[in-house]
Every structure is written in C-alpha cells, then in structure tokens.
C-alpha cells in the first residue's frame, strides 16, 4: 500500500508543475503592466519602477518563473498587491468555511444519491425509478444561485427556519451546522442528482453480473448481496463522479458564498477580481488547482482501496 501511495504522490508532482506553469503564463499574457494598473495613470515613472522592483517584475521572465515555482511548491504565494498581507494568511483565514461547505455538500450528495440510485436500480422502470430519473434531471439543471435563492426565499424569508446570513462562528459547532444547512442543500443538489444517476446505472450493470447470481445461489441474504456485493463493484464509477464533482463544487461554492453571504475562497476571488489583485488571483488559481489535484489523488487512492487489482498494476 505504501508503495502505491508513494507512486501516486510522485505522479501528482508533474501535474502540479504543469498547472503552475499554466497559471504563470495566463497571468503574464494579460495585457497591461500590473504596476501601472495598481498605481493608476497619474503615477510617476519612478514610483512605477519602484513598484516593479518590489513585485519582482524587473527580473527576467525565467527568473520570475523559477522563483514562482519554487516558492509555490513550498506553499509561499507572496503577498496581495492590494492589502500587502500574505496570501496564505488571507486564504487560510477563510479556507475552513469553504472546506466545510464543500465537504458537507459532498456528503449530502452521497447520502441522498447512493441510496436513491440503488433504490431506482432495484425497481427499474417502476414508479420510483421514473421519479428518480425526472427529479435527478431537474436537480442537475439547477444553477447553484437559483437553487440558493429559492431555498432562501422559502426557508429563510417565508418560514424563517434558517438565518439569512450564513457566516458562522467556527468554534460554535451547533451554529456552524445550522448555518450550513441551506448552502449545503443548494450546492449539493447537483451532486446528489449526478450521484443518483451514476449509482443507478452502475448498480444495474453490477447486479446483472454472474457473481451476484452466485451469491444469491449460495444463499447470501438479498440485502447483503445488494449493499456489499453489488455496491462494492459499482463503486468505482461512483467514486469517479464524486471526485470530478468535488472540483465543480469548489467552483460553484463562489455562487453559494455570494447568495448566502458566507466568507470563503469565492468571496476572496470576487474581491481580487474587482480590485485587479494579480498576485492574489495567481495564488488563488494555484490553490484551487492544488485542491483539485489533491482530490484526484484521493480518488486514485480510493480506487486502490476498492479494487485490489488497481493497486497491483
């Protein structure tokens, strides 16, 4: 197992460097001198030159690239062009909120999607199956901000069960969970819909296999056949979809954070965009990609746990 984990970890390094390179290129091909953008048209040439030196823009592209990659690999993304504070500190302060939301939505998606998908597969073309298919199609058509606004209208403004403001005290777990409910449902809806569909089709395939018939023939209880023999063999596509959608959840958390007025990475990125804070944007892009690379790594490792053949390769 250790060897498998190490191999996977090593394989993630080139991807990470490629991502860093792409981010570096994207930020550099933007028209306009960042120093000029920050200081405005009225700035003196001396002031602009001084800022360029401070930002390291006067060095050669190779030198900038090299120092960007090496410091990013040790988790140093420099300071925000606007506030002058360390990017890692600014991100670190709100990251727990975004992670809370993403994880909660992922769990919501799995808890709803897997049982409903199995149920639908077991009653193929029955009422449950048709209902699940229609509802999942509806669920995955909801843009996050639309589901968020509808939930807010119904449960916060009409029935007043949940607060309108979503920012919670991190040390008060009850409050944290209570304020997480609506954003989680809004963000997790699409995830639940996709997982339902994938679970249904993966289960249909797995339940048609010979080992299911063998298990039934030797008298294994049906419940165990479904949840152990069937589900374990259906879980590779499910894990794949969960891994893929965690990335989408991270992206969509921007919208959830706006609608529910929660602090988080999304709030920072929108702020950085409005203020043209290039170093912050560069850092955020890397952090988002880093999170996705980590999720992909976990997905890969899970393949190994679910299916021993993957590990042996």
């Amino acid at each position: 197992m250790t060897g498998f984990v190490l191999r996977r970890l090593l394989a993630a390094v080139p991807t990470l460097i490629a991502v860093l390179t792409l981010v570096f290129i994207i930020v550099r091909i933007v028209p306009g001198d960042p120093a000029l953008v920050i200081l405005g048209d009225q700035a003196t040439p001396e002031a602009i030159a001084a800022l360029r030196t401070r930002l390291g823009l006067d060095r050669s592209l190779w030198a900038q690239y090299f120092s960007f990659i090496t410091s990013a690999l040790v988790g140093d993304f420099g300071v925000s062009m606007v506030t002058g504070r360390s990017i890692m500190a600014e991100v670190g302060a709100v990251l727990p909120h975004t992670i809370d939301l993403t994880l909660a939505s992922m769990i919501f998606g799995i808890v709803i999607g897997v049982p409903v998908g199995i149920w639908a597969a077991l009653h193929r073309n029955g009422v449950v199956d048709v209902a699940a298919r229609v509802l999942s199609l509806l669920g995955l058509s909801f843009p996050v901000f639309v589901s968020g606004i509808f939930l807010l209208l119904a449960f916060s403004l009409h029935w007043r069960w949940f607060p309108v403001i979503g920012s919670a005290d991190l040390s008060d777990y009850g409050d944290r969970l209570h304020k997480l409910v609506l954003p989680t449902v809004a963000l997790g809806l699409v995830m639940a819909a996709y997982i339902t569909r994938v679970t249904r089709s993966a289960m249909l395939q797995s339940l048609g296999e010979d080992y299911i018939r063998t298990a039934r023939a030797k008298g294994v209880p049906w419940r165990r056949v479904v949840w152990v023999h069937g589900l374990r063999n259906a879980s590779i596509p499910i894990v794949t979809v969960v891994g893929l959608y965690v990335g989408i959840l991270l992206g969509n958390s921007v919208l959830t954070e706006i609608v529910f007025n929660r602090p988080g990475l999304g709030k920072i990125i929108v702020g950085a965009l409005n203020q043209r804070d290039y170093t912050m944007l560069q850092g955020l892009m890397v952090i988002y990609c880093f999170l996705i690379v980590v999720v992909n790594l976990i997905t890969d490792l899970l393949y190994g746990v679910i299916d021993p053949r993957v590990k042996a390769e």
Partner: protein
Amino acid sequence: MSTTQELVAPPAPAGWKRALGKARSNPTTAVGVVICIIIMAAAILAPWVAPYDPADQDIFNRLQPPSAEFWLGTDQFGRDILSRLMWGGRISLTVSLGAIFAAAIIGGAIGLISGYIGGRFDLFVMQVMDVLLSFPSLILGLIVVALLGPELINLVVAIALTAIAPFARVARAPTMALKERAFVEAGRALGFSHTRVLFRHILPNIMSEVMVMGTLWLATAVRVEASLSFIGLGVKPPTATWGGMTRDGFENILDAPWLAVFPGLAILFLVLGLNMVGDGLRDATDPKLRNE
C-alpha cells in the same frame, strides 16, 4: 470510383439516423424539445413580440407585481420583466451556442488529430488537456472574463476554453478505435491522404458522440453564462441577461421576490430542456442501450 467510395464509406450515418428516430419517440426528449423551442422562439422573436422595450424605464411603475399590464411585473427601474427575459434569452443563447460551437470544433479537432497520430504526441496533448481540466470551469471562466473584460465575445472565449478539453476527450477515444478499422486501412491503401481519411472517413463516425456531448454541454454553457452574469461578469448593464436580472432581483428580494424568481426559472427551464434533449440523444446513441 463510386464503388470504391461505397467500399470505403463508413457505416455510421445509418445508426445516427436510427438514433434520431429513437430519440424522437422518447417522451423526455419530446418535452425537452418543446421547452427549448418555446424559449428559443421567444428569444428570436423578442424584437417583434416583446410587449415593451427592455430598456424603457417607467418610474411610476417601479417594482410592480405581476399583473395584466405587466405579466411578470417590473423591476426597480420600472422595466418590464417579461420583455427583458425575452431579450436576455438572446444573450444566453448567443453566448452558449457560440462557445459550444467553438469548443466542439477546436476540441473535436484536437481529439481527432491527437487520437489519429497517437504515440508521444497524443500523450503530451492529453496531458495538456488534463491540466486544463484541473481548473474548476467556473473559476477558469471567471478569471478569463475578468482579465479580458466583460464583453460578449470574451464570454464566448471563456466558456469555450472550459469546454475544449472534454470535447477533445470525447473525439479522441472513438478515433483511436476507428483508425484500426478496415475502412480506414482501405482508404489509406487507395492512396487517400491522412487529411482526407481523417475528415471524410473518421469524422462522420464520431459526429454523433460530439453532437450528444454538444447538447449536454450547451446546458452547462447556459449555466456558466448565467453564473458569470450573476457574479457581475456578464454582458454589461443595461443589456438584459438572465444572470444579471437574477442578481438585481436578489438585491431586492425583500421587496419584490418575483424579480429573482422569474429569471431564475427561465435559466432553470432552458437548462432542463437542453438536458432532456441531450439525455434522450445519449440514450439513443449509446450502443449498450441500443438493443433495448
């Protein structure tokens, strides 16, 4: 010459036609097509059938609830919501269709060529596509629009950029399988150029996959465009966009909840309609389901 043409002709188009016929008989697809046609008609015909000018402000009728005069009510400037929705649909559809068309052509060509050439080149191209995929699409779109400026063409570029890699993947896999098939070999043996084999013989065979993908990604494109406008990075006001209208409504949610609800529903219905069509097409073209 006609006999060799027949010999070399790929077998797919017949399957594609059968798939279309099958998709038509599926009730979900039919409902989806109806939804899409209604929304597209409303958007295309907006200049003639919209009851009011979408930019006309009427300060005596601000924040009116739905009524016989204003079917879906008015916004904070007294503009008619229904008319703005019809005009906003034009932006949504133009941006999404443009982006998916561009992504399908560029991504499709990348996948086709990469899969056909194979080897190290293919490995490298797919690695680049994987890197592109490791950005969350909304974040990538957000940054591209923010850097280029919120113009219609930049929205098309940003959304297309997020969809290129998936199209490349979808085009590559069948190309790799097809290039081993006898009709490709026959074409090469007859002295056809690689370009001709690629575009005349392989391309028609992967069109159904690319088109199904296109319909499903169109739904995603509509959602991303709406999301960007909601964040404030869409086509600039006073042009009506569904996402922008939802945002305006959201800011007035206590006084006039319908302001956010109607554009939200418009986005939901269009995405749902496209998903229904795409789903039906996919089921009809899926070889695993073909014999059901």
